[in-house]
């Protein structure tokens, strides 16, 4: 057993770290570290910087512009990304849609979409959940009716993250409402968001921010060539994708960076004349979070090691990364808010008043991060998956 990285892996970590230090624009890093809103332009600018280096889609096959890194290198890359305060790459195009195209797309579809995903020219979003279909995704109702060489789409998607940035949306749609098994009436369709009949409506979350949307489809005509895999085989595609969504969900690098920020915050806040960091109660809670991060990181590395040796994905157990990763992010944002004591209350200045914007973001961040145990398959669903698939209950 050897829990350490090899000399080559350490050298690779240094290479990534120093490249990020030289190439991550200061204004973007500032925004990330100050918990500010990132515009579409910010995200695309960063994507293009990475693309110029050949690092926008590290996990892709080399022939499509990937790096050929092994899984450990990819893990190290993501870790350094989080530690550096780099804006995250939205997963919908490069990680999700691309995975589907590689596995199920025709050569034509690959040639048409993959280069523009790699370059950041097309911003992709995900059209899965519907108002009546959250955890029970297979009950989705958005209808796509085949008419000649087109599908006509009617219905509504919800929780579309960054839908207002979207150039394209990949959707699960119902093509056969009469299928005996409802999973067998679903198809996977790519839709240009500039198509007439699409309306995007913001949903404001309780931190006051706009990141998710409702997307309405009113007689939207989609060329039949935008169908991925066979008609009514969309559920196979969706299941393939769900495994991909969870592997990176631990967010260990970002949590390590946030823990450091929390430590700095707690060393400046004063309780009973001493830094809060020296308060036994607070320090114990912070230490528990630190231990949890270590446990999550080591568990992630164990999974990686197994994947590398067997060539197989870790299966249902990958859900545990999502469970613990989301709980950790929530614990850290909660401690940051509690570190401020009464100062966590101010939100926004009124009547010519102003607030300390950094401090005023702590409580809203705690509010916002409640989403992590709800999105991408709620933590209840993740537990169901482990119960059923791993434990056989």
């Amino acid at each position, binding site marked *: 057993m050897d829990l350490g990285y090899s000399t080559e892996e350490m050298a690779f970590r240094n290479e990534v770290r120093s490249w990020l230090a030289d190439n991550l624009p200061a204004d973007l890093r500032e925004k990330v570290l100050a918990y500010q809103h990132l515009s579409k332009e910010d995200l695309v600018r960063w994507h293009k910087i990475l693309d110029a280096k050949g690092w926008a889609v590290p996990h892709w096959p080399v022939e499509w512009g990937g790096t050929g890194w092994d899984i450990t290198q990819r893990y190290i890359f993501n870790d350094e990304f989080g530690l550096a305060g780099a804006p995250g790459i939205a997963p919908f195009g490069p990680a999700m849609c691309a995975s589907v195209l590689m596995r199920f797309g025709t050569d034509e579809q690959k040639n048409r979409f993959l280069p523009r995903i790699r370059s950041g020219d097309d911003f992709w979003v995900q059209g899965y959940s519907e108002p009546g279909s959250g955890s029970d995704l297979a009950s989705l109702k958005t209808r796509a009716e085949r008419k000649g060489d087109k599908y006509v789409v009617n219905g509504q998607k919800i929780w579309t993250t960054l839908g207002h940035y979207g150039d394209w949306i990949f959707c699960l749609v119902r093509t056969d409402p009469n299928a005996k098994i409802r999973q067998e009436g679903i198809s996977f369709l790519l839709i240009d968001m500039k198509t007439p009949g699409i309306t995007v409506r913001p*949903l404001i979350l309780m931190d006051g921010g706009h990141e*998710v949307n409702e997307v309405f489809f009113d007689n939207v005509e989609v060329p039949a060539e935008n169908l991925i895999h066979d008609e009514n085989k969309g559920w196979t595609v969706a299941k393939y994708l769900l495994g991909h969504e969870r592997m990176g969900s631990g967010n260990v690098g970002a949590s390590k960076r946030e823990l450091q920020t929390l430590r700095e915050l707690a060393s400046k806040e004063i309780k009973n004349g001493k830094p809060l960091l020296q308060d036994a109660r607070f320090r114990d809670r912070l230490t528990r979070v630190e231990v949890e991060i270590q446990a999550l990181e080591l568990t992630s590395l164990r999974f990686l090691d197994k994947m590398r040796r067997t060539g197989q994905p870790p299966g249902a157990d990958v859900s545990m990364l999502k469970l613990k990763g989301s709980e950790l992010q929530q614990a850290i944002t909660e401690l940051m808010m509690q570190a401020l004591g*009464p100062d966590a209350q101010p939100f926004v200045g009124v009547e010519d008043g102003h607030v300390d914007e950094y401090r005023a973001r702590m409580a809203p961040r705690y*509010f916002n991060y409640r989403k992590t*145990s709800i999105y991408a398959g709620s933590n209840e669903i993740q*537990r169901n998956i482990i119960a059923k698939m791993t434990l056989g209950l």
Partner: protein
Amino acid sequence: MDFEFSEEQTQLAESLRKYLANEYDFEKRKAIVKSASGVSDTVWATFADMGLTALALPEADGGFGGGAVDLMAAMEACGEALVVEPLLDNVGLAARLVARGGSTAQREALLPGVVDGRHRLAFAYLEPGRRYELDAQKTTARAQAGGWVLDGEKSVVIGAPSARVLVVSAHTAGVAGQPDGTSLFLVDADAAGVSINACRTVDGQRAADVTFTGVKLPAEALVGTAGGALPLIEEAVDFATALLCADAIGTMKNANDATLEYLKTRKQFGAPIGSFQALQHRMVDMYVVCEQARSMAIFAAAKVDEGGDAGARKRAVSAAKVKIADAARQVSQESVQLHGGMGMTEELKVSHNFRRLTMIAQRFGDADHHLERYATFD
């Protein structure tokens, strides 16, 4: 033994609840929060008409001589509706300090206006970088030319932007015979040298950081004796904490009711999600923790009304606040989680309950603070 509210107490709460249901629904509250002042003078006048501002003040000052238990059921109704008007900050803090510590002249000048709703007060006591500590250190008052000069800064003073007079705690070291004490002063909010930096809090209330720069006060601005205000402040904050616990019960009850309804009506996998045992048990825990919190809120209110031993009062209030802080956290988090994505949105009251409960958990000291204080009075 009698854990029930009296007929009068219940009636007051019921008429308040009826009023709030009509005039303070979710949309109307939202409009108030977004309005210029962030408080409704109409609502405030109605509170005064109902006697809410008078209830806990002494009869000699135009009040009804009641206590925390008398206000509990009404505070619970306020919690259900997420009232943002600073009722607790007036009757629980500022007006209570004037009533219990002020001279006849001070009481006559301020309390009738509180009782009939003409004006509001606010209590400025928290200081930057000193978390929940109740003594004044960073705001000082120097005796000068038969009066006082006030300097320093107070943070997150709830209700300050709409208050006519601030009750301000200040350090008065150097006063003859009072080497190291905390004192209280009455300061007009529009006095020269008072600067109010107003904000809206994450749970929709109005607050301000208040700076005092060479504010000249007459001798009669001092409330009570110089240097001796800390016990008075501790009593008022305990009283207000007991009211806050009652307020929290109302909000938790509302969050639990909404979640229960959602579990019964939201269908996934062909069944109401409330039919899943994993969720049933969590709903049961939310219910249980709310009932436990209610018991402790009643205990705290009864103990602050008893008067007597300050140590016993502090222990009771701290015990209640530990329980309420933990319960508020559990109920707020679980109500959002069980609502799924919808619980995260501005559109549902659940997310507003969440924010309010989160701030209640921290106001007047979080669970850690009160665990520590409880142990001090063993």
